[in-house]
C-alpha cells in the first residue's frame, strides 16, 4: 500500500471507529465509578453521619486487611495464576506472631520478621509447585490452604493464643504482645483531626500505591502482564517466565502475611476462629476490580476501588439498619454484576 492510500484508509477509518467507541465504551469504562459515586451520594442523603471523616476512616479500616490481601492476589492474577492460600497465610501469620510473642517470648519486631518470612516461603513453595511441579494454580494453592489451616493449629493443639493461656503440657504461657506490635493495630495517626488514621489504613494506601506503581509503571510489572496474556510470547521475548510467576506468588504471600500481622495486632490475640472471610472477600475485591475503568484485566487501582466499593456498600447498608446476615448476599451480588461488566460488555471479554 502506498503512503497516500494508507493515509486515505486511516482517514476513512477514524470517524467510524470514534463513533463506535462513544456510548457503550463510556458506559463500560465509567459505569462502575458512576455507580460508586451514586452510592455514596445515596447513603449520604439517606443516612446521617455517613459523610463524616470518622465514617470514611471506619470504611477504610473495615476493608484494609481484605484490601491488602486483594492487592497481593492481584499480582498472581496478573501472571495468569490464582492464589487461594492467601486467607490461610494471613491466619497463619496471625497465629505465628502470637505464638512467637506469647509462647516464645520474642519481641514484636522478630514476630513481624517471622511472619513476613512465612509469607515469602509459602509464596516460593506455591510458585515452585505451580511452575516446576506443573500443579495447576488453583489446586496447588488450595492444597496449601488446607495445609496451612491445619498447620497453624498444631502447636497449640487447636487453642487460641492469648497471654496467660494454658499450654498442652500444662504450663502457662506468660509472654505478652509487645506494645510496638499492638500499636500496629491500635495507633492512629493525626490527619487533619487528631488520632484519625489507623496504621492499617495507612498500610493499605501505601501498599496500593506501591503495587499499582510496580504493575503499571515498571518493566517488571509490564512483563508480568505479558506473561499472563501470552506466556509463550513473553518467553520468546526474553522474559524469565518462571521467575516472574514465582515472584508473583511471593508478593501474594508477603502481602497476605502483612494482613495477618495487622489482624493479630488489632485483635491482640491469636484467635483461631477469625479470618474466615478473608479469602472470599479479597478475591471478590480483586475480581470486582476487573470492571473498574473497563480494564477487563487484573489491576491494582481496580482492586483498591473494588475493596472500597464493598466496604462503602456494607457500611451504608448497616447504617440503614440492614441486618448483618444480608452482607454476604450483597457482596455476592456486587461481584456477579461486576463480572457481567467485565466479560459480557467489555471489548476484551468478548474475544
Amino acid at each position, binding site marked *: 500500500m502506498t503512503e497516500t492510500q494508507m493515509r486515505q484508509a486511516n482517514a476513512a477509518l477514524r470517524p467510524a471507529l470514534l463513533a463506535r467507541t462513544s456510548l457503550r465504551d463510556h458506559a463500560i469504562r465509567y459505569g462502575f465509578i458512576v455507580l460508586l459515586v451514586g452510592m455514596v451520594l445515596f447513603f449520604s442523603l439517606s443516612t446521617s453521619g455517613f459523610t463524616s471523616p470518622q465514617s470514611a476512616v471506619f470504611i477504610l479500616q473495615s476493608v484494609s486487611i481484605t484490601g491488602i490481601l486483594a492487592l497481593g492476589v492481584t499480582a498472581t492474577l496478573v501472571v495468569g495464576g490464582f492464589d487461594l492460600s492467601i486467607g490461610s497465610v494471613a491466619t497463619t501469620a496471625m497465629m505465628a506472631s502470637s505464638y512467637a510473642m506469647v509462647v516464645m517470648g520474642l519481641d514484636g519486631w522478630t514476630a513481624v520478621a517471622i511472619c513476613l518470612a512465612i509469607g515469602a516461603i509459602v509464596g516460593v513453595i506455591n510458585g515452585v509447585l505451580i511452575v516446576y511441579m506443573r500443579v495447576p494454580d488453583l489446586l496447588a494453592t488450595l492444597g496449601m490452604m488446607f495445609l496451612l489451616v491445619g498447620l497453624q493449629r498444631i502447636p497449640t493443639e487447636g487453642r487460641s493464643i492469648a497471654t496467660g493461656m494454658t499450654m498442652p503440657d500444662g504450663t502457662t504461657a506468660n509472654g505478652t504482645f509487645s506494645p510496638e506490635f499492638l500499636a500496629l493495630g491500635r495507633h492512629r495517626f493525626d490527619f487533619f483531626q487528631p488520632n484519625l488514621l489507623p496504621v492499617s489504613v495507612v498500610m493499605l494506601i501505601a501498599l496500593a500505591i506501591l503495587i499499582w506503581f510496580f504493575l503499571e509503571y515498571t518493566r517488571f510489572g509490564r512483563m508480568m502482564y505479558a506473561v499472563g496474556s501470552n506466556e509463550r510470547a513473553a*518467553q*520468546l521475548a526474553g522474559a524469565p517466565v518462571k521467575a516472574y510467576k514465582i515472584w508473583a506468588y511471593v508478593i501474594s504471600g508477603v502481602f497476605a502475611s502483612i494482613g495477618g500481622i495487622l489482624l493479630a495486632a488489632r485483635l491482640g490475640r491469636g484467635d483461631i476462629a477469625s479470618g474466615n472471610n478473608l479469602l472470599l472477600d479479597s478475591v471478590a475485591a480483586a475480581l470486582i476490580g476487573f470492571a473498574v475503568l473497563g480494564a477487563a484485566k487484573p489491576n491494582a487501582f481496580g482492586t483498591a476501588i473494588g475493596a472500597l466499593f464493598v466496604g462503602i456498600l456494607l457500611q451504608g447498608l448497616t447504617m440503614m439498619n440492614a441486618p448483618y446476615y444480608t452482607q454476604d448476599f450483597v457482596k455476592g451480588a456486587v461481584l456477579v454484576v461486576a463480572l457481567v461488566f467485565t466479560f459480557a460488555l467489555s471489548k476484551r471479554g468478548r474475544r
Partner: protein
Amino acid sequence: MDKEAVFRIAGLQKAFGPIPVLRGVDLTLKSGAVTVLMGANGAGKSTLVKIVSGVYARDGGTLTLAGEAFEPTTPAEAMRAGVVTVHQNINDGVVADLDVATNLTLDRLSGKGAHLLFNPRAVRRQARQVAERMDLTLDLSAMVGDLPLADRQMVSIARAMAHEPKVLILDEPTSSLSSAEANRLFDLIDRLRARGVAILYISHRMSDIRRLANRIVSLRDGRITGVFEGEKLDYEGAVNAMLGQKINLNAVAVREGGQAILDVKALRIASTAKPLSFTLGDGEIVAVTGLVGVGKTALAESLFGARHPLGGQMTLDGRAYAPRNTGHAIASGVFLVAKDRSDNGIVPDFNIYENMSLPFLRRLSSFSVSRRDRERAEAQRQIENLAIVCRSERDEMDMLSGGNQQKVMVARWLTQASRVLILDEPFQGVDIAARRDIAKKLRASASGRATLVFLTELDEAFECADRILVMSEHTIVGEHRNSEIDMDRLLAEIAGQHEASEQ
C-alpha cells in the same frame, strides 16, 4: 463451461459497526469445479466464509443452494444443508483431548438421532471408513492433541468430508501442510471434484492455485474485482485484480555476505540427525527451506536459546556463543521473529507499541520505570517504516489485519540493532502486498547484521534471499546462490533424495 451453478451468492453485504467489509459480493460455485478465491488480507475473505458457514449473519443479499434459499443461522445448520467449511484455524476443527477416531465421527455423536450410549467399537468402525476414504494413514487411537499440526489439519478435513458435502469450503488448508501432505489433499480434492462437489478454495499460494483452480475469483475491499475462467487461466490478471495494481516480480540483486558474524559448527538438533554447519555473513539474507517437520523451527530455536542443541559449537563475532535462554540470546544480539504469531508472538492484551517494545523494556526504561513516551516514539517510527495500517500506535492488535499484525511482529525486532535476525515463517498468513513490504524492508535494512529466514515456500525464498540452504531430516543438505539455482538439484534435496543424486 456447462457445469451447473449449485451455489449462488448475490449482492452479499456485511458491515461491522459502521465499517463495511463486504459491499455487494456476487459469486457462483459450480458443481465439479474448484473456484479459487483470492484476496489480500482484509479483503473480506474470512467474513465471506463465516457468513456462508453460518457463523455471522449477513446484512443484505441472498444465498441460494441448489435453487433454494440458503439461510443458515448456525454452523451446524449450514453443515446439514450440505455446505461444509474447513476453517483456517486448525484447532477449531478438532478436539485435542479426544482420539482421532472420535474426532472423525464427532458430528455423528452429537447430531440428531445419535445413540444415547457411546459404542467405541462402532465409532472405530465408522472412523476407519472415513479415514480410508481420505487415504488417511494415522493411528486412530492417537490423541489429536499429540499430533503435529499437519496431521491435525488432515483430521479436521477428513471430519468435514464425512458429511458428504455439496459445497466444500477450504480456507487456506495448506498453510501448515508439507508438500507431500498437500499433495494428498489435492488428490482428494480431485476426487471430490470428479464426484461433483462444488469447492471454494481460499489460498495465497500460487502453487496450490495452479494445481487446482478451474476458476479464479479475485476479491478486493469487499467487492469482486475479477472472475477468471476458461481453458487457460490468467493467473497474473487474477493477482493484479486482487492487489488492484500491477505487481512487478522484482528479481533479487544477490549480495555477497561480508565478514562472518555467526559461525555454526557441527550443531546437532535431533538425536538421529547428522551435524550441520553453516556461516552467516554481514549484510546477507540466507533462506533455509525444506518441508514441514524437517527441523527448521528446531534450528531457529536452538540459535535463539529457546531450545538446547545436542552438540556442536557456535561462534558469534568470533566469540563462543551458547545461549542459555532467550534473554541471553537477545542480550547477545540474536533475535527471533517466531512463527505462528498468535501463539508465539502477539500479547493480545497489549496494544501495538507495547507489543513492539516487549523484548527491549530494559533498554527503553529508566531505572526500571517504563518510558512509554520512548516506546511510542519508536513504534511511530516503525509504523511509518513498514507502512503498518492503523489509527495510531495505541491500537489494539485485534483491530489489525493479519498482514499488519505480522508487520508489528517483524517491527518489534527491528526496533533495536541485531547481529543475527532470525525469522521463522515470517510470511505465514500474510497477503502478497504485506509480504513484499516486509521482504523489501528486510533487504533494505540487512547491512550490519546477518539475516536468516526459515521458509517452506520456495517462491518466498527466491523473492528475498541471497543464499538458500536446504534442510532435510534435521540437517542441512544443500546450498544455493539465489542467482544460479539448479532447480532439479534443489527439489531433489528438499525431497530428501540428495544422497541418491550425489552418488
